[in-house]
């Protein structure tokens, strides 16, 4: 195997040079503890402040101290769900999330249920859009929190976040959104979109792994996450990872700065890839919304082909894809997202996600489609499912 092509950018990206350059001095030159008062600490604190400012500007938050750094999206999602639910528990113990949220939301909800909260799981349509009339139907007097992801990580569908936030506020409910896949793909303005709390992560936007943040609108209450020290306004103790935070700030700034030009490039990449696939492989369906979706994610169903076998054949030829979100692709369970969208088991079991990034070339795509065509043909030739048996 010689050539390797990466189609799993929605799982994680490499760190870009611009980001790396921002991080490097923080490993050995700017090494003070950002929570100390001496000059070394102040130098580190100024790096952290700069990163917080960059993120504040990128999402149009009103204050930099509305950004709370975390170890990533999972932590921020866990914190948002549990921290907000508990902070408003005196008002009510009912929260609403969609059925297609990331596991870091859904698993946190399970914990809440064990703690005596009630959680309603909002259904989605066949394109992955949450059902707004259903949302109105399940809102209750004791609902305190609604959390709906901005962009789905498996199919790329973009939710109507602004509308959902408005509905939440009409009923005096806090609104949180997981924007891990949204930053750099769609414009996020937390004030205009009336977002109260928002999860972001660095490693999907050419930043380092292990860092993310929770945006929390001034005045919104949340339970502290980690006790010990004054870091993150006393809500999440621990010495700040200055290099990671510096890289995160830069990554967000670059993602928003280059959003329009990247969107165009990614659309071209996706369309070219899809055209090649359709030209050369029969019985391929696109999962997700036909229009309201990000350009970086393409979820395809290769009928009569098992996703794990296909993923393995592709991998053996150097083509890296995902059979769902990274956090669940090791498990045998079906994608909860595709299931919630009402797709048949055989469609869900035959679907894989291609996600695109800045480094992909036409040559990469041509190679991947060659491998894909051969792999699909090989698996179909031994498949127990037949064209005649297609639904």
């Amino acid at each position, binding site marked *: 195997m010689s050539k390797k092509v990466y189609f799993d950018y929605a799982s994680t990206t490499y760190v870009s040079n611009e980001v790396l350059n921002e991080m490097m001095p923080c490993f050995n030159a700017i090494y003070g503890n950002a929570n100390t008062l001496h000059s070394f600490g102040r130098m580190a604190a100024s790096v952290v402040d700069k990163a917080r400012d960059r993120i504040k500007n990128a999402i149009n938050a009103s204050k930099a101290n509305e950004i709370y750094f975390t170890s990533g999206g999972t932590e921020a999602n866990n914190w948002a769900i549990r921290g907000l639910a508990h902070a408003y528990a005196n008002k009510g113990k009912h929260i609403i999330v969609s059925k297609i949220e990331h596991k870091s939301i859904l698993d946190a909800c399970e914990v809440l249920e064990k703690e005596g909260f009630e959680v309603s799981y909002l259904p989605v349509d066949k394109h992955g859009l949450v059902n707004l009339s259903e949302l109105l139907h399940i809102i209750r007097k004791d609902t305190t929190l609604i959390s709906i992801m901005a962009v789905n990580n498996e199919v790329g569908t973009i939710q109507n976040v602004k509308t959902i936030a408005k509905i939440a506020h009409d009923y005096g409910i806090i609104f949180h959104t997981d924007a891990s896949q949204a930053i750099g793909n769609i414009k996020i303005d937390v004030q205009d979109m009336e977002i109260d709390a928002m999860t972001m992560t660095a490693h999907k936007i050419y930043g380092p792994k292990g860092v993310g943040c929770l945006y929390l609108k001034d005045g919104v209450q949340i339970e502290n996450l980690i006790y010990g020290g004054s870091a993150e306004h006393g809500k999440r103790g621990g010495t700040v990872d200055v290099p990671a935070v510096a890289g995160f700030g830069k990554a967000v700034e670059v993602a928003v700065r280059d959003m329009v030009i990247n969107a165009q490039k990614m659309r071209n990449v996706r369309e070219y890839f899809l055209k090649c696939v359709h030209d050369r492989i029969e019985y391929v369906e696109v999962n997700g919304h036909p229009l309201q979706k990000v350009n970086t994610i393409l979820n395809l169903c290769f009928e009569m*082909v*098992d996703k794990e*076998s296909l993923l*393995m054949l592709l991998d053996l030829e150097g083509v890296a894809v995902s059979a769902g979100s990274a956090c669940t692709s090791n*498990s*045998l369970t079906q994608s909860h997202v595709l299931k919630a969208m009402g797709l048949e088991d055989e469609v869900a079991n035959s679907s894989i996600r291609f996600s695109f990034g800045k480094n992909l070339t036409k040559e990469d795509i041509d190679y991947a489609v060659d491998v894909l065509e051969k792999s699909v043909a090989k698996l179909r*030739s*031994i*498949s*127990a499912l037949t064209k005649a048996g297609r639904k």
Partner: protein
Amino acid sequence: MYSEKIIERFVNPKYAGGLRGANGTGKCDNEDCGDQVKLYISVNDDNVITDAKFKAYGGVCTIVALDVACSLIEGRSLDAALRTNYYQILEEMGQVPEGREYTANLAVEAIRAAIEDFYKKQEKVKK
């Protein structure tokens, strides 16, 4: 996650494909995982399986388990083939990752279903 032995067998399964002239076909599925398999056998007048093939819609281990099943029953009598068990298939597969052991069961069921189908067809012929 997968051993080289499993990957090698997955990439080059000796018994994958249809079988012209098969006189027994076993169809099985695993609802939880969505696997669907077919095992074809060709049995001669001495009740010996002369050929075995399979088709599978399933993951890496499903394909390997069915390939192993075919290799274990080809050339054997129906009675001997019926005695093929879960542990034999697992052992022949090599290191099966946790959670994929069910594929060996699926393969055993497919063998039994194919033999059962063969006997049913024989009875029809007699009638």
